[in-house]
């Protein structure tokens, strides 16, 4: 049985409120990082202003002033989810510490959320890394059908940030994916990201950026486990994607994101059409057929069991997966809230389409800016013919513009609900539902989160990294710094090479380096 390393990066949203008004966010983030340096046992990150923690993970500021936590390298999906949760708890503790010392009335919070509904059309990433040894150029056709269709269980749920209306989507992040394959990560993102930065010797690293931050343990577990198995099958030469090639991956991605019925058929190369569930079953059945093979990791049978359970649930419709997966849990909350607010959910699709048509007619790009409805339908409308036709349609249907205006007035409230769903701590909606005992998302074996905040995984180089950091964190005079592949003390002239991801023992090298020289 083969060990496989995997890990997760989570970018967190941080908000600051003074009373009912927004407060400056950047000073809060800077202070949080200062607190992290001062209060968490750590070694300075040699490649950024961040730090490596005693659990082997990395906390740092990424582009856009995002606080980001990378889990240590893990050898199974239980550990990967455990360390994601440990990252959440670490962030929560930092927020609590900050709240205790910040200016009176300043309220800060931290969120696992995927898109910014605040008008900037930005997105927070949740990236996955999978170690492999296959030629990276061979991976896209094997992975893309999986990455597109896994959204049925990996979707966080929420609203399309580029829609002028309220358009529920299985995956808000999907709106930020613009290519089938791309090397970019901040614009023109691809379903398949070609970045191959191994951060170790003798392996490649598949970096997946089309996924999302999730709250459900089950969704995270199956996302990481199933994708690992697809990579393993590709590495073994089974070509798991060959029989399920999508005609247009990007179109398929949009279709899956908007299909709450899970029954839409996707155009395949050739004559066949398949649903996302059928494509996922294709991958699952191939994995099940090879469970006893040497290339499979030892945990593959349990992952397949949970993968099958999730697909069986979804086969019965999203309601069957409510409480177990993210988007099927969020959707009924939005439906119910719409009902309470007097909105007819089923008509939102109509209004969304109408807004989309008017924006197009006015030649306004779909850039997330607020649609000027009053201008569009007012006496100075730049699209009089279209508005006339729409008015006639509304009269025939007995609809009224006021209904649309009411929906638009409530957009921010729905967006706030989405963001608060993933808020860390007891005030988060997901946490409240979990506390109320109405969820069924936990995976047996994902436990000891407190322990994972202070201790590394038991296997691989992360174990060594964490042990060293625990030992030297207090030695400020040693001028220690760390990267994924090395730990080094400038003062002591000692270097630990961790380029072997499965390193089992500390093999230190004496390596005097001149002041200011970089060993990384």
């Amino acid at each position, binding site marked *: 049985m083969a060990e496989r390393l995997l890990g997760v990066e989570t970018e967190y949203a941080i908000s600051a409120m003074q009373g009912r008004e927004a407060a400056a966010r950047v000073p809060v983030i800077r202070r949080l990082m200062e607190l992290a340096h001062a209060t968490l046992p750590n070694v300075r990150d040699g490649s950024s202003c961040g730090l490596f923690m005693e659990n082997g993970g990395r906390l740092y500021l990424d582009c856009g002033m995002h606080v980001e936590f990378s889990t240590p390298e893990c050898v199974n999906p239980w550990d990967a989810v455990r360390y994601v949760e440990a990252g959440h708890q670490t962030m929560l503790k930092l927020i609590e510490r900050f709240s205790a010392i910040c200016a009176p009335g300043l309220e800060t919070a931290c969120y696992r959320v995927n898109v910014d509904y605040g008008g900037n059309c930005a997105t927070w990433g949740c990236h996955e890394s999978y170690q492999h040894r296959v030629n990276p150029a061979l991976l896209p056709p094997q992975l893309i059908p999986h990455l597109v269709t896994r959204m049925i269980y990996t979707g966080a749920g929420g609203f399309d940030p580029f829609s002028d209306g309220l358009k529920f989507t299985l995956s808000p992040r999907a709106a930020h994916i613009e290519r089938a394959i791309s090397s970019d990560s901040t614009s023109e993102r691809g379903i398949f990201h070609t970045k191959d930065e191994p951060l170790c010797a003798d392996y490649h690293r598949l970096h997946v950026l089309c996924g999302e931050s999730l709250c459900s343990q089950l969704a995270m577990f199956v996302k990481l486990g199933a994708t690992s198995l697809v990579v393993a099958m590709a590495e073994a030469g089974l070509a798991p994607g060959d029989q399920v090639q999508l005609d247009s991956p990007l179109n398929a991605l949009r279709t899956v994101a908007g299909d709450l019925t899970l029954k839409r058929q996707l155009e395949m190369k050739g004559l066949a059409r398949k649903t996302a569930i059928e494509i996922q079953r294709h991958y699952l059945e191939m994995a099940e057929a090879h469970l006893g093979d040497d290339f499979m990791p030892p945990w593959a049978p349990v992952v397949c069991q949970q993968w099958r359970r999730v697909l069986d649930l979804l086969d019965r419709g999203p309601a069957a997966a409510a409480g177990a997966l993210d988007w099927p849990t969020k959707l009924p909350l939005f439906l119910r809230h719409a009902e309470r607010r007097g909105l007819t959910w089923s008509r939102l*699709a109509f209004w969304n389409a109408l807004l989309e048509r008017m924006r197009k007619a006015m030649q306004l790009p779909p850039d997330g800016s607020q649609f000027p409805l009053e201008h569009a339908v007012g006496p100075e409308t730049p699209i009089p013919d279209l508005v006339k036709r729409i008015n006639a349609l509304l009269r025939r249907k007995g609809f009224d513009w006021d209904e649309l205006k009411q929906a638009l007035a409530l957009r921010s409230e729905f967006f706030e609900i989405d963001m608060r769903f993933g808020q860390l701590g007891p005030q988060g909606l997901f946490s409240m539902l979990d506390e109320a005992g109405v969820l069924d998302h936990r995976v047996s074996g994902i436990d000891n989160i407190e322990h994972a905040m202070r201790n590394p995984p038991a296997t691989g180089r992360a174990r060594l990294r964490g042990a060293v950091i625990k030992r030297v964190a207090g030695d400020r005079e040693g001028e220690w710094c760390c990267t994924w592949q090395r730990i080094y003390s400038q003062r002591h002239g000692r270097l630990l090479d961790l380029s072997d991801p499965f390193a089992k023992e500390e093999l230190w090298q004496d390596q005097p380096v001149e002041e200011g020289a970089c060993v990384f």
Partner: protein
Amino acid sequence: MRFLQRFNNEQPQAGGDGDSGSDGLLEQFRSQGDQLLAAGDEAIQRALAGSNSEAFLRAGRQQGGE
């Protein structure tokens, strides 16, 4: 008007654009049990109490990102 009907038909959000009140979709969730909906109602009311949603979204607004 075909363009609007076409758009509408392409949006399987729920049971079409009829005015038949709240949707079959919500009923499907209700049929699985009202506990999640009731707990969700309560949680949302607590979370939104006294909140200014516009300011809340501004407070979390970001630049860039991966």
